[in-house]
């Protein structure tokens, strides 16, 4: 089962490698990972998608909590949350492609005679659909951010 884990960690060198290293050391998978500083510049927020049953995820969160640089960990997928991915696609500038992008709710953020860069934001499933609807021949390159998220209740991942 897919799980979305979000954490706050010290925004300093070495912190990210400890988090990522933990996953390989303990044999856990990372499907996607997204990280950036928060409004408090001393902290970074990291969101990762992983796969595992309840026991595995419990171990992952406990082991993450043990890392000295990790300040707080939550399993977003335990409750209601909003998760979004950002997708950038570079594709051949054809009329058909432009039409599809428009229908699918994508935004064209760059356009030349040959190329289009389009932006799409949505849940992972919506991103999948967006991509699969575009023709494979049209797509030249994609960049997916991986899932970021916040819970949809009063619980805050802040300090």
């Amino acid at each position, binding site marked *: 089962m897919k799980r979305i884990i979000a954490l706050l*960690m*010290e925004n300093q*060198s*070495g912190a990210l*490698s*400890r988090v990522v*290293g933990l996953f390989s*050391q303990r044999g856990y998978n990372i499907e996607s990972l997204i990280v950036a500083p928060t409004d408090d510049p001393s902290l970074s927020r990291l969101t990762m998608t992983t796969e595992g049953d309840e*026991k595995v995820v*419990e*171990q992952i969160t*406990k*082991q993450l*909590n*043990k890392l*000295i*640089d*990790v*300040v*707080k960990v939550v399993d977003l997928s335990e409750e209601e949350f909003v998760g979004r991915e950002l997708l950038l696609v570079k594709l051949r500038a054809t009329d058909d492609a432009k039409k599809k992008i428009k229908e699918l709710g994508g935004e064209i953020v760059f356009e030349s005679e040959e190329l289009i860069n389009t932006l799409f934001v949505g849940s992972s499933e919506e991103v999948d659909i967006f991509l699969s609807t575009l023709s494979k021949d049209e797509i030249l390159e994609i960049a997916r951010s991986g899932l970021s998220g916040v819970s949809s209740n009063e619980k805050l991942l802040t*300090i």
Partner: protein
Amino acid sequence: MAIEKLSGSEALMRSLKEEGVELVFGYPGGASLHIYDALFNQEDVEHILVRHEQGAVHAADGYARACGKPGVVFVTSGPGATNAITGLATAYMDSIPVIVISGQVKAHLIGTDSFQETDMIGVSRPIVKHSFLAQRAEDIPEIVKKAFHIATTGRPGPVVIDIPKNVSDPSYTFNFIYPEEVDIRSYKPVKEGHSGQIRKAAKLILKSEKPVIYSGGGVIQDEASEELTKLAKMLNFPVTNTLMGLGAYPGTDKQFLGMLGMHGTYQANMVMHECDLIVAIGARFDDRITNEPNKFSLNSKKIHIDIDPASLSKIIDVDVPVVGSAKTCLNQLIKELERRATDYDSSKLDPWWKQIEAWRDSHGLNHSMLDTPPKNGKILPQQVIQSLYKESKGKAYVTSDVGQHQMFAAQYYHFDNPRQWINSGGLGTMGFGLPAAMGVQLAFPDADVACVTGEGSIQMCIQELSTCLQYGLPIKIINLNNSALGMVKQWQDMQYGGRHSQSTYGESLPDFVKLSESYGHVGIKVEDFSDLEAAMKECLSLKDKLVFLDVVVDEKEHVYPMLEAGMEMSAMWLDKDKKTWE
């Protein structure tokens, strides 16, 4: 107080003094020369020059295990740092507070493949509790303060401080202030157990009719032996200790069942399998204990007290997990039990004790093997441990290496006190015993310190015999010499049709007596059982000499009991032909 201007190196030495460090183990090199110069210019911290950095970390580790204070190590960059890795991994697996301070190449050279450069922070990352790269001299006091705090609190563990050479350079000085307090927002270890969980635990304890206390290294680390003993005594519960936990409960006490697990006693393993309640304290249900987790003690309720939340329900699901320190939680539990159990009657455990004594009588260890001289004159390894126990009156600090000798020592030397038994339980590091014994001897100069080893293990850090001469460390090396990598050979006997692949050395073993003598020590070789007692007596009587007692033992002997893989804890080999199942 006037503020002093100190260099990074001087600040390091002063910070160590502030932390109460009296002893550092290490080996100098290019990147740590500034640090060694600052060491030279002060008198508060003594340095022990080892012969290999692995020995330095094991020695610091042995020191920490024996006296409870953190062990400190200096190594240089590159090979100095990588040689420390096995020691770090050893300390990490057994949760020992060790602080390794490594020199690093100058900051502007990091990443350029410069001479003796290794990414120590990266290489050590999976085997340390935490690590610091000092980027400015000014950061050193705070880093040292944090490092000691992290290493010694919560679940203890090793910490690395990597110091680039420019940061320790004497030409730059700053105003030295040592922080009085440390506050790490992301690190607040919990000591006290949740009161609701303590109450639940007490209820289960009072209800049980077939209980067992299973305790591990956490009780020793947290100085909770007294509380453990009090709990066991007030309830009349049987106690078994893990390999790491031996000595936490008096080994000669009648409620003690011996060690449990892979080579645990018959009664300890049977009790774990048949009990209705396990009270686990400072132990982590590792695979050498549980055997097959799906078949582990299926009919028992389980209480698990541990400082590390990640240890709870990691391998075995427990009914009452309690996060907290062993000492605090035991005190809470004792108080709760005293409050509840004014009429507790331990006689309800009589049938259980009767069963336990029956197990002990039927297949318990024979602790009187010295009374039965072997017919072929060959000394049995168990007899050597029994002789050591007898002649040291049970008072020696015993370190060990890894293999059959380690198991024999754990089984046959009764440890009555915590910190008396020092071995690499988690990582199983051959080469640990001798340098660890150096650390113990330096912590307790007047104590009898014995290193029980084998001719395989001892050769992994044998260079430290030279260190022992330099600092006059009168360690007693008890070498159970079976001319083979005994535990490997035992497994090859049992599971590989007796094919002894690379577990013997032909005729290549050194003459250990001459070898010891060449290092300025005393060597004694014993081959016949009739000479064992006198040799052991002589060995222990030479108080100011390191003695290498090379005992040729029966090379065919195996360690039993031994759990059968993939089965429950009651499935044991009792000797070469007898098994408890089928």
